[in-house]
């Protein structure tokens, strides 16, 4: 738990409680997300990527910690700031980079781009361009799991800004009412675009809103991957046991602009610097070494692997064909009937 006004670079969780494999996987995924974002930003500047990017640099711990508590057949819905969620849920950087580059080999064949990447085989029901738009969808997936008696859960990622949309409220009420196996994961990065969270909601701790829907709301240090993991694990257990939803608020911060190119006039250098001190990746790295959970060499090896994987991803994307322009007309419907749809 943390109060955002008092940033600290001390993690309070205990890596030594977790198996080493697990710790290294968490580390690897966080680094992969960070480096993926930085590559994507570069490749956008270099012209490989045509669209906008909302990077999640600084928010790797929420994505990784939360998805680490999910099984492969659990589902997530994501947001406009979704690259981290996708990678954390097992998304392949190759297909992601290819999608960003609008290639036919990308996750959506170049039709979706950053805002709409999805992989149904991995339980990734989609990023989303509409703030809060994915929350009812996750709720519905959880309903399907519950109705079929499956041991599966759904997790909806969304931001602090999304909590003020009606869609969140309606979905939370339904989930609380029907005790659906869904986790509402709010990444509270203190801003919605250029507007601070304090100018969007009259309450600072959004988790407390869960009470209104009769399920628990918990706050986690969103820059501590283990804290996020543990909170999510508890929520997942609760959901699998049939006890319904949990709202998790991960307090975190985005290091870059709302989108690449954002002048960021709305926040101070000091605030940004204070949060940079709490960068979730070096903090976790220091902790792993301090607790002798991993060696410098092991972590370096992971970092090198990540770079190699991203070299490959960029090459794959750059080397992939663009889709045929006329393919724009395909994929609107699953079946054809008589008559005209054009």
């Amino acid at each position, binding site marked *: 738990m943390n109060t955002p006004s008092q940033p600290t670079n001390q993690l309070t969780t205990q890596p030594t409680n977790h198996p080493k494999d697990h710790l290294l996987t968490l580390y690897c995924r966080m680094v992969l997300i960070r480096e993926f974002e930085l590559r994507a930003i570069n490749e956008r500047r270099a012209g490989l990527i045509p669209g906008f990017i909302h990077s999640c640099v600084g928010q790797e711990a929420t994505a990784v910690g939360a998805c680490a508590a999910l099984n492969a057949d659990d589902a997530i819905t994501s947001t406009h700031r979704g690259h981290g969620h996708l990678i954390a849920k097992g998304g392949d950087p190759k297909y992601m980079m290819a999608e960003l580059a609008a290639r036919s080999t990308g996750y959506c064949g170049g039709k979706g781009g950053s805002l709409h990447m999805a992989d149904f085989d991995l339980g990734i029901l989609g990023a*989303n361009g509409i703030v809060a738009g994915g929350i009812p*969808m996750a709720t*519905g*997936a959880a309903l399907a799991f519950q109705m079929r008696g499956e041991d599966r859960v759904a997790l909806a990622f969304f931001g602090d800004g999304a909590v003020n949309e009606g869609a969140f409220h309606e979905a939370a009420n339904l989930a609380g009412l029907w005790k659906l196996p869904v986790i509402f994961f709010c990444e509270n990065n203190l801003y919605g675009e250029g507007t601070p969270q304090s100018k969007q909601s009259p309450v600072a701790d959004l988790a407390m809103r869960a009470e209104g829907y009769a399920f628990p709301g918990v706050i986690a240090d969103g820059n501590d991957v283990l804290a996020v993991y543990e909170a999510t694990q508890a929520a997942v257990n609760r959901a699998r046991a049939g006890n319904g939803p949990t709202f998790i608020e991960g307090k975190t911060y985005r290091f870059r602009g709302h989108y690449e190119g954002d002048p960021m006039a709305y926040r101070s250098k000091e605030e940004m610097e204070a949060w940079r001190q709490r960068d979730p990746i070096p903090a976790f790295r220091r902790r792993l070494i301090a607790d002798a959970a991993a060696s410098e060499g092991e972590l370096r090896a992971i970092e090198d692997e990540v770079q190699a994987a991203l070299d490959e991803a960029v090459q794959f994307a750059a080397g992939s064909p663009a889709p045929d322009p006329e393919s724009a007309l395909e994929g609107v419907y699953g079946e054809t009937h008589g008559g*005209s749809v054009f």
Partner: protein
Amino acid sequence: MTREIAFSKALREAMAEEMRRDSSVFLMGEDVGVFGGVFGVSAGLYDEFGEERVRDTPISEQAIVGAGLGAALAGMRPIVEIMFGDFVTVAMDQVVNQAAKARYMSGGKAQVPLTIRITNGAPGSAAAQHSQSPEGWFMNVPGLKIAIPATPYDAKGLLKTAIRGEDPVLFFEHKMLYEVKGEVPEDDDYTVPFGQAAIRRKGTDATIVAVGGVLPKAMEAADLLAKSGISVEVVDPRTLVPLDTETLIESVKKTNRAIIIHEAHRRAGPGAEIAAILAEGAIGYLDAPIVRVATKNVPFPYNPELEDFILPGMGDIVEAVEGVVGYTL
């Protein structure tokens, strides 16, 4: 072998039979369960299928449609009900940005077997927020299919097609059709394909395209006109997306005159698109202006005479047909 049943019973049978056939089909909406639907369409389903598969929901249209979509993406075949077409506005993002586009945005991978049943039409003195026919808006939203049956036969057959399909379907049910009776086959398992218009009456002097709830009025008008020697062909598109443009164009090429009738407001209603299609595809064959008879462009008033005045009536239809038949270019 056929039997006569009401439009609402036809819908109920379609749902019940599909729910028996396929355990992934379920119904969800406001008062669809214990109450049986405010228009009684789902009466009895709760008793047969239980509260798990006939789900009463909170008054939360965004969550209803959104949860239907999520369940569809996770392999179910939900039918969700929006009680009045006017209320689909509350769920508009989930319909337009989410359900309609999920497949395309994912590069064609998402399956979205979601049926959204929506009532439309003015039930009489229900005023501005309980009388609208919003189907036209959704024709402008690629990714949706739109069914708008006018007979019990089509109600049942099109609803089955919707439920079994892989795409989000907006299924419009005109409130004043619910009690209308018509023949349906004894055979449980017929379906009506999307995109095939039905020629409800053959004729030579003019084509009436009648969308949804106005079909009975159009047929009556055609009867009346026949008595004064005017032979009207009545075409029912049955689905607006996909639209059987070929049948529409062929009919007008034959009769050389087109009148389009619907209960949605006239401006930019479904008739605008149909007129535009005819003005492109049958231009050389038209011997008169393309005329639309539809609700006048004002919100629905409460007073019944005022309401009658703005609704497309038999008299309006007859007058419009006589107008185009008597027209010389």
